């Protein structure tokens, strides 16, 4: 099992529903977020290209955050999901410094928090909150080890990229372009 998220930038309108849905699903305090939207503009008027995308923890296969965590609070569970155990976390911030995506933050209660791919929902057979609410249905979630899964098929048939692959993190959030 290898969970992955595939996001179609050709469909994303940057509405930020994923951000709110994550906040309400995971009780993320106002002012913080586990996912966010970026906008990239290229070209000169009127030949301009716009890319909108939803970003979050990439659940890297070679996760620098897990590597540098001194207590093992940051760890990888089945399916390749990177999680933080709140009461093993000392709040040293090393994982935050190590993440090329700035995907982690200090929860006001002190521990470090981040996207879990909605691990608690997956266990119940539900999709991550962001994927389940997206009005453009531009987000897909599934098992990369299954060659017939929606995400595997999309990556097989469509041009895609990951973020900062040169950081050597082997990210598992893919962007269709």
């Amino acid at each position, binding site marked *: 099992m290898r969970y992955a998220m595939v996001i179609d930038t050709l469909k994303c309108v940057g509405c930020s529903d994923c951000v709110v849905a994550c906040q309400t699903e995971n009780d993320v305090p106002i002012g913080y977020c586990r996912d966010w939207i970026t906008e990239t503009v290229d070209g000169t*008027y009127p030949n301009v290209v716009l890319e909108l995308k939803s970003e979050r923890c990439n659940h890297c296969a070679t996760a620098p955050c897990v590597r540098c965590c001194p207590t093992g609070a940051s760890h990888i569970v089945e399916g390749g999901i990177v999680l933080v155990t709140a009461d093993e976390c000392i709040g040293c911030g090393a994982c935050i410094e190590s993440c090329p995506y700035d995907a982690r933050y200090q929860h006001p209660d002190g521990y470090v928090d981040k996207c879990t791919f909605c691990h608690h929902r997956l266990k119940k057979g539900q999709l991550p909150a962001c994927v389940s609410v997206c009005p453009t249905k531009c987000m897909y979630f599934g098992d990369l080890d299954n060659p017939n899964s929606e995400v595997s098929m999309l990556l097989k048939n469509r041009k895609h990229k990951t973020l900062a692959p040169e950081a050597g993190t082997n990210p598992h959030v893919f962007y269709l372009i």
Partner: protein
Amino acid sequence: MTTSRRKFIKISALGLGGAFASTSAFSLFGNNSYLSEKTAQNIAKNLKKTATYCEVCFWKCAAWAYSDENNTIKKIIGNDNDPHCYGRLCPRGTGGVGMYADEDRLKTPLIRTTIDGEETFREASWDEALDLIASKFKNIKEKYGAESFALLKHGSPGKHLEHLFKAYGSDTIAEPAYAQCRGAREAGFNLTFGSWIGSPEPTDIRDTKCLVLIGSHIGENMHNSQVQEMSDAIDNKATIITVDPRLSTAASKSKYWLAIKPATDIALMLAWMNVIIKEEIYDKAYVEKYTTGFEELKKHVANFTPEWAYGITTIQPAEIRKTAREMAHAAPAVIIHPGRHVSWYGDDTQRARAMAILNGLLGSWGRRGGFYFKEKISVPKYPHPKYPHPKWDWSDIGEKFPLAQMGITTEVIKCAIPSKDNKYPVKALMVAGTNITKSIPNKKLLEKAMNELEFMVVLDTMPMDVTGYADVVLPECTYLERYDGIRSATNREPSIAVRVPAVKPKYDSKPGWWVAKQIGDRIGLSDYFRYSDYKEVIEWQLQKMGTSLDEMKKIGVKNFPRTSRPLYLEENEDYEFPTESGKIELYSKELENLGFDPMPVYTKHPEPPQGFYRLNYGRAPMHTFSRTANNPNLNDLKSENNLWVNPKVARIIGLKKGQSVWLKNQDGVTSTFSIKVRVTERIRWDSVYMVHGFGHDNKKLTRAFGKGINDTQMITKTMDDPIMGGTGMRGNFVTILTENPYKKQAI
């Protein structure tokens, strides 16, 4: 009555100061420590699920509100069976939790009073506030007649108050949703097809092969099912053509982005008609069978070649031809989208006509992938005595606009200013669910009118700017805390949805229906409110419709089969359009008889003078106009608007990204607040752009106060649509001030 009576009250009400303002946003969510999965799971387990439909915008998506044992709304999730949302809410719907949780909400009735020469609000009991309002209702009726009490409204509370006003004898009712928004397209399409577009629009986007958006920005407006269907259309490789001077989100998803010079859309559409007719690529059978006036149209557009349009629109003739052919190629599965906010330049009905005519030529009305025949189920009327007949009403006020089919807010407001010619004096005003100071331009006129009023009452959930002008402010509870009317809207299949309170009303807030009933009871209209709880009304209605409140509480949405007619035109059908001629009127006799152009013509609109830029405004997907700016969840996503400026302009003026600037418009109006610059290639050099709904004046909106500029403040010049009274707002020009204009005055 002193002249300063309706001075805008900016200060906090006595006894309210600071007490609520200092509550930290964090505490909204309690002090949940370790939200590791275990706890999160437990939280999820114990949540109660309540059927509702969203009121954060007008799309009214059906949803489930999840609340916990502490009476807190935890999350709101779309109802899978709802054709408005297909189980997926937009960010505002998901963020509806913040509308409930917002600690800045109106908490108790407020009454304007003067203490030590200073105007302020004092807290009042509901009884005191309602008694005062009732006495004004009686007083106005005795002195001037019930008609002089006007209602400006939007959304669900508006319906309940409309009932109260009609029972009282006043049909002086209007809403900004018509003249300041979609009125012109309703008039234009009605003139052509004999049918309003309505909401949600009957556009068959999910099956279309070509979607043409003219200044419409799906994706930045989150009209939920439309956004979802546009995404489906992208999956289906549909061609999207976007006509917009700005690279909107939709434009970035388009195969063709026609970066048109602002205010020249009609010229482009005339050229499209020219190409489609000249190249004979229109739907001949359809035009033959269903339209009238084709020959006149052919003659009319003969000279409007793409080369002619190029000089006006700056769009290359080849592009015009190519896009016209793409549309024709996709026809009849093509949609020239009517748009939603269309009150731009004063010739908006004619622009809507041009869109409608193009749809007619391409045969898309009543066709799969074009426009479907919408259907809704009617909700039985709860019995009440007949409404009295007012001596005059909204239609008399708007009489100089022959095709106005709803009240025109700006005209109602003008009636509040006494003059010899004013036959329809408005003396008192109720405002419900609409922040008119942000939705109606020309603030000076608005303030003058409000100042002349003898009484003004505002019902809202939030201390919006408009509450500052009121004599009495009533705190409405949010949609999550009340029963409300049954939602029945037009769609592919009829459906209904119910709104059941998920939690008890917070603070001392009350539902709109309760307010209407309380006032009604106090002014002797109890017969119109023969129920103690609105729940009884919907129970009765649902029973009549073959279901029950219990069932609806479980399912939230009920879909009904179509009964009126097939979704699309049948092969051998002889459909009669509900127009006078029974056909699609490419040539409008009705307009001709009224002295208007029977077919659209291009008229040149003013262009910005040296040093000025056309002020364009639009929407952000996470906000609904000005009403969500203070919502903690949505404010967190976007707390202020930015001024989009082309890099060329930035170079000339010397603007940097993130720099704060002020605006001054052609009439010398300076923005109250500043706005941060965004230097971007997404906008033309002759215009600037900002998202509507920011720059709030009321300090009680602790998160939204003073953030960004209110575009409506900069709109002082309007161009009225002579056909239906729409308020054209895109003809305002602004200059950019890099120095704080208020600092100088202080020195």
